[in-house]
């Protein structure tokens, strides 16, 4: 919180700075914990409830931390038309969390976004700030496995699968 105090001093203490302060605070901390919101509220001179109301209006602000690997699936018009929902489904299926959630081990977090303006590369996914273009459900598995995730089907039932598939 001391770092936040330092940060606050660099902004004018008024309502007009509220969004910028929240953005900077989130950059610093990765998300906006309750105490930070209280600090910001008292700095700009509005009630914590009002700051909370403002912060929750905007999709950018998070009140839980990111996972080590943060994925954002774009569901803009173009991405949707090119199968973006299937991509989100694939992430939700493999990570076993819904958009807006984080895995219990804090390794993976998942979000959706309205559009990141890369419509010509649809469907796109932003993973750890890098844009992955022209995704498919299969590529999702590849990317996740590449980052060290144990894929469902290789862990769940490799053994029995082999037995089932190759009955000699």
């Amino acid at each position, binding site marked *: 919180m001391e770092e936040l105090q330092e940060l606050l001093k660099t902004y004018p203490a008024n309502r007009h*700075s509220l969004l910028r302060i929240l953005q900077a605070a989130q950059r610093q901390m990765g998300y906006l914990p309750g105490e930070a919101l209280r600090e910001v509220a008292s700095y700009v001179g509005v009630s914590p409830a009002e700051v909370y109301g403002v912060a929750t209006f905007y999709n950018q602000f998070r009140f839980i931390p990111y996972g080590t690997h943060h994925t954002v699936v774009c*569901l803009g*018009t173009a991405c949707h038309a090119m199968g973006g929902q299937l991509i989100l489904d694939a992430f939700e299926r*493999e990570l076993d969390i819904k958009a807006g959630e984080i895995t219990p081990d804090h390794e993976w977090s998942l979000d959706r976004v*309205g559009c*990141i303006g890369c419509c*010509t590369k649809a469907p796109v996914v932003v993973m750890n700030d890098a844009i992955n273009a022209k995704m498919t459900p299969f590529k999702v598995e590849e990317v996740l496995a590449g980052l060290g995730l144990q894929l469902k089907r290789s862990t769940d039932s490799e053994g029995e699968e082999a037995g089932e598939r190759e009955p000699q």
Partner: protein
Amino acid sequence: MKKQVKGNLNDLRQGAHNTWEELETSALTVRIGTPTCGRAAGSLDTLQTFRERIAKEGAEAHLIEVGCMGLCFAEPLVMINNPESGLPPILYGPITYEHVQRLVEGFVLGDDPCLELALGTVEFKEDGTPYIPEMPRFEIEERLILRNCGYIDPLNIEHYLARGGYLTLQQVLQTEPEKVVSEVEQARLRGRGGAGFPTATKWKLCRQMEKEPKYIICNADEGDPGAFMDRVVLESDPHSVIEGMVIAAHAIGASRGFVYTRAEYPLVMERLKVALAQAREIGVLGDAILGSGFNFDIELVGGAGAFACGEETAMIASIEGQRGMPRPRPPYPAVYGLFGEPTVVDNVKTFALVQRILEQGGEWFSRIGTPNSTGTAVFALAGRVEQIGLVEVPMGTTLREVIYDVGGGIPEGRQFKAVQIGGPAGGCLSESSLDLPVDYDSLKEAGAIMGSGGMVVLDESNCMVETARFFVDFLARECCGKCTMGRLGVKQMLLILADFVKGEGDEEDLDLLEKLAEDIGQGCLCHLGGSAANPVLTTLRYFRDEYEAHVKEKRCPALVCKELITYYVVPEKCERACDHCVLTCPTEAIVTDERTRLKKVLQDKCVKCGTCLDVCPPEYSAVIKVSPPEKVKELEEAAGG
């Protein structure tokens, strides 16, 4: 603070011009497009590889990072000008890092133009706008806003100056503000943000207000999914927008300006920051602009992810640090705007056009386009179309020309189904509308809106009911929630549509949906919420048969709606030994028959992700989708019997 006087700007421009001329005529230049979309295609790798190769070879070549030329389908784009070869500049794409070696050896070090990688040669119109004669689209396009995009280095103000940048501002500062307004009035410029309100009317109203200070806001909160025009303009030619804003500020007497852009556009923020600093340095922004008595500065405001903030009163609330909720109009922002002061809010492209209008004259501008919709329109063409990218055409060009002649038509020989114009709150037009001229009034009549320029093409593989559900879902999440119609009405439409895509509901629900949409359109607090009706009303109007197929037959004609389709492996087509589908299925829903090696989809395990269809080798194309789902039983029986 050092202040540059006017004379200095002329000197600066002359210097920039000389450098530019030299660069153009005698230097070897390699231009690489590195806007956000180019980066997504790997242009930074291309750039890095060029840098390494050129350094290694010790070649004398200037690498220039440019913005977007609009030919996004061919990204990463590279333009090489090798004056010694005697050839005009050549545009290449897509150029990934693997191609760099070939280009360096061929056209940087030698005089082989590597035509197998080329899109075409680059020629220039009288006003310096580059075009590619080999591409038919440039016969239809007219680039007023995109003139510099993809050709100049957006981070180098000298490039902008060399092409006449800020000359118009210098002249404007010598003229009376009224004259500026009347020039815009003569141009009959209508706002490029979507509603098409006459720009000069708004400016006049604001100018007449006897209140100080006045504000200017550049609306760059391009929240429409499927739209990226404003991002491209700001990433590729930020100074043209800044110049337009300063001109507008002079016209209405504003002292402060804001560019409100999206949090999802980090590169826009970065480039604008640089551009604003440069503008201050040369004295076209700040106190006593160009030695005149006029003070104006621009502040960059990063939105925080809220579609509703694209509405002007919501944007104002957001800049004030409030929840981005629209408020009832009147009073209009020109009367009661930011911090309660008179404020003009205009779109990025409007400001870019203001610069062109003051440069070339309102009369010139009014002759482009149609009488009621003058000038050009920029569209972000995306979805199921060959040449995805940015398009700038004179108003009045038909949708057919935009989609087929500029965009190259629908890929893979599929059938055109619809074009979605104007963002989520726009409308879906059918084939019958293809010959419609693109202008504010024609589109409105057809049930769509010009919007800020998103144009997403849909083909036979897109379901219109699902498309409507998608837009309404977006709007239900992203509308501000303030009024009953927006908060609950839009959600009720969504709940009905969510039933339809599952094949639930009846004809009475179709009527209810239509009536709800009409009521929301008329009864909402803001026009943004009201326009949530458009996707529903236009799909009902042009694609009612698809709705009826879902509701009456529980069938999705486009084979999209998950609950209404099943996957099926056609035995006659299946190669049997290949196993691609079996191995890639994420839920092990495809099994092989021990005896016949035929594949069967276990419907209770299948999550309908479509991977099997994607991976089935095209020479077999054995995986198909069928609808309604029961149909698979018939097929299985027929195959088994």
